[in-house]
Each structure stands twice: as C-alpha cells, then as structure tokens.
C-alpha cells in the first residue's frame, strides 16, 4: 500500500523540491515565483488573520448555490426532454445546441446590465455554466435505457410514477452523477472568473487584489488554496457516488477522468 502512495506522490514531491530550490537559489526571480515555503507561510498567515475563511465561505456559497440551482433546473428538464416527446426533441435540439454555445463571459456582460454587480449576477453565471453538462448527461442517460426495460415495466403494470422511480431513476443515476461531477468542476472554474470581474470579496477578488498590489506570494497562496478546495470537493463527490450509486464502473470512470 505504501508503494502506491509513493508512486502517486513522488513526482509531485520532486516538483515541490525543485520549485523550492530554484526559487531560493534565485535560478528564477523570487519576485515572480516565490519559494514554496513562503507560499505555505502566506497561506497560514491569511488563514490565521481570519480573512481567508470569510473569503472561502463567500466563494463556496456562490459556487454551491449556482451548482445546486443548476441541478434543480437541469435534471427535471433533462428528464422531460429525454424521453417523452419526439417532436419537441426535433425542434429543441438546434436551439439547445445554440444556447449551450453561449459563452458565459458573453452572458456576463448582459446579465450585468440586468442585475448589476450583485451576488445574483455571479450565481446566475455559475448556474448557466453548470446547467449544460448536467442536462446533456441526463438526456444521454435517458436515451441509453433499453426500451425492453420499459416494456417489462409495463408488463408488470407499473403506473407512470413507479416507472419513473423504479426504472428511470436507477438507470440514469450514473450518467447524472457524471454530469454533476463535471459541473462541480465547472462551477469552481467560473466562480474564480466571475469573481475576478467586478467583485469585492471572495477568492477570485483576492487574487486580483494581490496581483494589483504586486503581492505575488499571495497570488500563489490563493491559487494553491483554490486547487485544494477543488480536489476536496471532487473527493466528496466521488465518496457520494460510491455510496449512493453502485460502484461497478468507478475504476473505469476515474481512469478516464
């Protein structure tokens, strides 16, 4: 078991060592790339002086609100569009294709006009970005259910509600979860972008602020914190996936993630 841990982390550790030495020995300009130890101490400073926690909580609040709003909107919409109405599908497909291409940055300026510089703007942008992966993977999941299973359900005399609960939900759950994991990553991604454009708190603003004050070590520190948060959130999702969904194909999914 130790071998596995060593295998996974040796290159990262080597990289950290190289980073530290290169910066300390001034092979690269330490103004531009501070040594790793300094980055760690900066994280600790930000943490203990209390700023970091409030920024993290605001950022997480925005990202997770957008994320959950996207789930609530996209999953039912995906179920609706996924199966019942063939004619509506034909009409809606080009429209959905078009809408999913709308760049969130483009929409950001438009939403800015309507909602101004408030929390709602950022949450809306994150929601928009997250809706598309979830919706498309829900639809894909619905489409991949073999029609024979529906026929078997009808043979058993299941009514609509039971067909939904006992057939559709378990069959589409893996695809939906894949979409949800993907959109969690997107939500963190867009969060930083949205916070960098017109904001006064949160991790993205902290990066921008530190850059403007030429405190590069803070920029690195916050980047590391963001990466850690991203990895943590993804691990939580993986854990949920393992418990809630039968984990036969987890290895395959992770190998290609």
């Amino acid at each position: 078991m130790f071998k596995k841990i060593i295998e996974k982390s040796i290159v990262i550790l080597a990289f950290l060592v190289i980073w530290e030495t290169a910066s300390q020995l001034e092979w690269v300009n330490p103004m531009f790339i501070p040594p790793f130890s300094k980055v760690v101490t900066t994280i600790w400073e930000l943490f203990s002086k209390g700023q970091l926690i409030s920024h993290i909580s605001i950022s997480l609040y925005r990202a997770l609100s957008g994320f959950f709003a996207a789930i609530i909107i996209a999953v039912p919409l995906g179920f609706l569009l996924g199966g019942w109405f063939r004619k509506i599908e034909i009409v809606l497909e080009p429209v959905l294709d078009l809408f999913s291409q709308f760049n969130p940055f483009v929409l950001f300026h438009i939403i800015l006009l309507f909602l101004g510089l408030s929390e709602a703007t950022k949450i809306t942008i994150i929601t928009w970005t997250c809706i598309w992966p979830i919706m498309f993977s829900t639809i894909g999941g619905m489409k991949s259910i073999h029609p024979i299973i529906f026929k078997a359900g009808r043979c058993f005399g299941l009514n609509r509600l039971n067909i939904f609960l006992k057939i559709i939900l378990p069959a589409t759950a893996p695809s939906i979860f894949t979409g949800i994991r993907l959109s969690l990553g997107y939500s963190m991604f867009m969060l930083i972008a949205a916070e960098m454009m017109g904001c006064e708190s949160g991790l993205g603003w902290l990066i921008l602020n530190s850059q403007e004050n030429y405190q590069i070590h803070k920029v690195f520190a916050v980047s590391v914190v963001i990466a850690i948060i991203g990895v943590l959130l993804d691990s939580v999702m993986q854990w949920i996936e393992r418990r809630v969904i039968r984990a036969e194909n987890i290895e395959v999914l992770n190998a290609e993630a």
Partner: protein
Amino acid sequence: MPIRKFDYKYYAFRFSGIFAFLILWEVLPRLNVLDNQFIPSLSQTLMALVSIAEGGELFTHIMVSIWRALAGLIFASAISVPLGVVLSRYYPNSLNLFNPFFRLLAQVNPFSLMPVFILFFGIGEDAKIAIVTWVCLWPILFHTTTGVKTVDPILVKTALSTGASEVSILRKVIFPASLHGIFEGIRIAVEMSFFMLIAAEMIGATAGLGALLHNSAMNTQIPRMYAASATIVLLGVLLNKILIYLQKRMFFWKEEQDIFGEPQQKEEVKPFTQESYIIIAVVLAAILFVGILQVQKAAYEENNPRNKHKQHTNMIHAD
C-alpha cells in the same frame, strides 16, 4: 449516389425553434415587453454589426482572435502530442508516475494563473497565447495518451511480424489508430482555447473580439455589445460545426449520435484523401498569415488612432 429530394418540411420543422427565438428577439424588445435599453432588437443588433464591419474593423477583430487561438493551439499540440506519444508508448511506467502530477497541474484554475502569466509575459500578445497554450496542453495530452494506450496490441504485433521498422510502426500503425483520441482532445482544446481567449482579451487587449465586447460594455454601447456577443457565439458555433464535419470525414467509419441519441447519418460520407489534408494545412497557414497582418495593423492603429474612426463611434452613440 442516389439523388435525394431536399426534405423542406423536415428542415423547416427542425429549425422552427431557432426561427421562433429570432422572431421573439425582434418582436419583444420592440413591444417593450423586454426593456429596449437592455435588450436591443435583432435589427438594431444587426445594424450595429454592420457598422462595425464597415472599414474592416470586424474582420480585424475576428482574425486577431482566431490567430491567437490557433497559435496557442498549435503550440500546445506541438508540445503535448509528441510528449503523449513518447510517454505512453516508450515509457509507460514514467507515464504512470507523472499522471498524478499532470492531473494536479490540469486542475489548477487557469484564471488564477492569469496574473502569473501576465507578470512573465507582460500585457501583450505573448501572455494571451501563453494562457491559451497552457489551457490547451492538458486535454490534448490526456486524450493523446489514452488514444495511444488503447491501440490494439495485435495491430502492433502484426506490424512487427512483417519486419517493420520503429518509425514505420509509428507512422502507419500507431498514429492512425490513436488519431481519433488525438482529434477528440483537439476538439475539446479548441473549445477551451476560445473560451479562455475571450476571457484573456477582456482583461487587457485593444483588439480582438473579447476586447470589443469589453470595450462596448464599458462605454455602454449596448447594441454594439450585443453585436460583438452574437459574433462570438456564431464563431463558436461555426468552429464546432467545422470540427464535427472534419471528424465525420476523417473517421468515416464511426456512427454519429446527436445529443438525443438518434443516429445522424443520413447519407454516405466521403472519406478523407491526401488532398484534403493539404487543403487544411493551406487554410491554417492562410489564417496565420492574415492574422499576423491584422495583429500588426491593430497595433499600428492603437498608436495612431484615426479621427475618422472617432466620429464613427459618436454616430452610433447618438442613436
């Protein structure tokens, strides 16, 4: 090939959703159901678009953006395709060691790296191309390694048994077999590159579509902003369609599925030939060449603004 009657009814029905959207866009702001200040009608947006296109300004912006994205994409491919092939074929153990490291690097939010890149390269072309390159590196690398790893070993063994040299095996067996994966990676990279490019241009550029968008938003020229947005979206859609078309032709043996899972293939697809590759190379070279000219033109204009240009902007504002 059988001659098929053009199925008007099907296509009319299929695109009726988009027509409805366009009609709503035209009608609702005029009736003031949606505030006309915030959402100009389709015709107003088109007029603003035409006014940008006059004098070649729109062409400059588009070409500059495409050039930057293409340059970043080429750099990223040049680094990660060879790296991926070499690592996964000749040093698979090293690949397993390096994989967590690469995944960690890919996870780092590119927006948080933007200040670092700007520090290193300054606010010029280099920074934007560098960011685009970084963002494109990882999808291409991952998909290349996956593609090379899943080459059927029987194919390689067959080639070996015919006494082929290593270079031949690379060229004739591995490269075509992994091409699907590489192309998938390039497709994802193109999407991401365009995405990041708009973001990078909004931060510090004076030419390019993102800069146009940002500029119009800052000066509250709303129809112009919508015109820029529509251009960006249309360009993205066009790129996507082109890539899908290329993919269909290059991998003509695969079946296409739309998002609703129905098989798309209604007609035969002509496979790729040597000439098609040459055409693609020529088109890319032309884009690079024209793009560089436009970039220089934009830089020149930034230093010597034309007065005629300023009057032009005032005219739109008075509307």
